[in-house]
């Protein structure tokens, strides 16, 4: 029981990063596409404003997932990094560039420097989720641990997962930014991001369909499990929730749509995770085979409880203060 529970914690960590980090990356993508028109500059200012107090916290989900992975499933961690190091290295470089240039575009001294910082920030916002999701796709493809690192890292499955994640981050980014625009009372910006929810939603549905086809061709057993096994509930959820968010946006109804966005993206991650279970590496390594000794499991569960008890209220406080506009300087 405990091993499955810890695997679920790991999956939750990955899902939380996909959602929280995804919103961040998505905002970066819209920043990149905003252009230099007055409207685009306004969008960019809103993105900056919305991201400032929370983006670091989002990053913690990533670190947490990594730590749970190597602590609970050392064999999975070793095999994955021995095989997929190119992807992780690329994602990592993207991650630092993004973090650094988000901070430093505010201290850029002239317009040229500022544009360069914007560009690096935007491009790394696309590449980072792409490569991270490639790693998940590579795991799902069953290629980890066989063939060269290059073959394991770059194949139809990994590319498909990468593309879906870029579409998903753009989608959730637009959805959350529309919400921020409402909170700040900026009707033009609501409309601006509403149209982007619709556009990225269509792209997400298209890439998701292609990805499902690729899974069907490349990993038939995973596909079966996704459409008729453990993953089916979540696969259906994401297929329903994504158009639901688009429908709400299209009709201009903003009740619940951020919760639904979280549901749509989270279900996607869960659909993969559950479909793959009990395998961590399809056909090669199960949760039972990779799990660390009992004492480690106990500590991890205690840490999980501590996270729920300590961090959850803190995180709620941060988000509450943020949503109440307490974490803000008064307008001049």
């Amino acid at each position, binding site marked *: 029981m405990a091993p499955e529970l810890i695997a679920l914690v790991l999956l939750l960590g990955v899902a939380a990063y996909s959602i929280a980090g995804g919103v961040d990356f998505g905002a970066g993508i819209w920043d990149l596409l905003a252009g230099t028109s007055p409207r685009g*500059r*306004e969008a960019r*200012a809103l993105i*900056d*404003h919305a991201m*400032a*107090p929370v983006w*670091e*916290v989002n*990053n*913690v989900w*990533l*670190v*947490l997932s*990594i*730590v*749970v992975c*190597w*602590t*609970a499933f*050392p064999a999975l*961690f*070793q095999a994955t*990094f*021995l095989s997929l*190091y190119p992807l*992780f*290295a690329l994602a*990592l*470089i993207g*991650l*630092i560039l993004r*973090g*650094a240039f988000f*901070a*430093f*575009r*505010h*201290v850029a001294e002239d317009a040229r420097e500022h544009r360069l910082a914007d560009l690096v920030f935007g491009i790394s916002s696309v590449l980072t989720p792409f490569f991270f999701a490639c790693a998940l796709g590579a795991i799902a493809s069953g290629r980890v641990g066989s063939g060269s*690192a290059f073959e394991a890292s770059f194949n139809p499955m990994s590319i498909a997962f990468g593309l879906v994640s870029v579409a998903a981050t753009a989608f959730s980014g637009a959805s959350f930014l529309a919400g921020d625009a409402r909170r*700040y009372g900026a009707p033009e910006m609501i409309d601006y991001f509403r149209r982007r929810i619709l556009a990225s939603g269509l792209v997400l549905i298209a890439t998701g369909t292609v990805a499902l086809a690729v899974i069907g061709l490349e990993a038939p057993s995973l596909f079966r499990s996704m459409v008729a096994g453990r993953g089916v509930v979540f696969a259906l959820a994401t297929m329903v929730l994504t158009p639901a968010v688009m429908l709400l946006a299209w009709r201009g109804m903003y009740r619940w749509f951020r919760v639904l966005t979280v549901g749509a993206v989270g279900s996607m991650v869960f659909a993969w995770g559950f479909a793959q279970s009990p395998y961590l590496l399809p056909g090669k390594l199960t949760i039972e085979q990779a799990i*660390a*000794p*009992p*004492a*480690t499991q106990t500590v991890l569960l205690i*840490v999980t409880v*501590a*996270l729920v008890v*300590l*961090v959850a209220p*803190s*995180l709620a406080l941060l988000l509450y*203060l943020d949503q109440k506009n*307490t974490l*803000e*300087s*008064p*307008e*001049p």
Partner: protein
Amino acid sequence: MIDSPLWLAAEPALLPSRIQMAFTLAVHVLLVPLGVAFPALTLVMEGIGIFRNNPVALRIARRWSVVMAVQFAVGAVTGTILSFEFGILWPRMMGRYGAALGLGFAIEGIAFFLEAIFIGIYLYGWRRLAPRTHFLLGLVLPPAGVLGTFAVLSANAFMNTPGGVTVDAGQVVDVDAASVLFTRALGYEFWHFLIAVYMTAGFAVASVYAVAWLRGRRDDYVRLAFAVPFTIAAALTPIQLVVGDLSARALAGDQPQKFAAMEVTWTTRDHNPEVILGWLDGSGQVQLGLAVPSLNSWLVGYSPDTVIRGLTDFAEDARPNIVEANITHLAFDVMIGLGLAGAGLAAWYFWVLWRRRRLPDSTWFFRLASLAGAGCYLAVETGWITTEVGRQPWIVYDVMRVSDAVTEAPASFVWTMLATLVVVYSLIGYFFVRLLMQLGARWRDEDARAIEAPEEGAPYGPRPRRLGHGS
């Protein structure tokens, strides 16, 4: 270097991997002192501001919180990189010992989370939160920093004095969590490092205002901003000498190879001299350096007859090579020298404070104080080099070699990644320093014009205003 097979052993990626790890850790460790200890200093200052009704102290605290947040952000990035490097560079260490090493890091995860959340609240809450609420919420930060330090040092202590695991056929089959978290080295490593980061933060912050003092600013602002961090750091310095001494003595038993390298002891002997500076040549002779007869034996066992084990007591593939031993020794000596110099400066400070009931007014004192911050950073680096290089060739002491843990990635890959990281880190460093200088210049300007908006325009606060929606 060439005569040592350990530098370029069979695994081609060993050398670049070691360099990359050393480089990224060396950068990260520079960001740790302010990350862990700056919140405490800032809260002391905010406390003075609130409870003694001192607006100058509040202004200082508010400005410090900006620097604290920016530096935490950079540290969070370099720390994230380290966690991935465990996988990219040393996958087989994590494969074998992840279940044990991970315990500390899992606890660190909680600390990191709390720090990230409450730094956000602290920085962005200055204007809208009630002063006492703001202060109370900030109080989460120092214990979170201590918890994080404990957790990371616990993992490092495991690498130095592993225990609490049962290994069978290269796999950890049983773990005793308490024994893994509290290995022998943790006791001294934890206190030594925790005191070090508080000292470094205190001296580093104070040194900024020592420079301002030297440039002629003598107002309340500079005196307060100097005195609070300097007093805390100076008070910790003598404690650090004692803890450092205990640590070194414990190493003589816990990791005798490392101790032999620190003291460049080639052959096992009693009446071992304390060698100050100097280095070992290929034949085990100490070149240059000042040897104080029997002192090392005295320091370890309070008697000249104390036997100290030499490097040659260990197999060649189980001890640091000559180059590593020399690096360890010189780093150790530099750290000791800086520690003693800091103690001298602290003594001077407290002497004046005690006899004259005021801050020193000697230009020489402030010149030295302005160097104390840099000195502390150098001491942290050299102390870390002593611990890490002195452990070679082991990644987990006595049970796993660095060369057995390294990735299977080709050397060219790791070299490329290293080069990229060097470029990106340089960029980050450049922007970071420029940002600090911009903030400093703006605050000096504000002081001159008496404007109160310390966080304005900093990347983390207050939040940038949206265009077109201001008044």
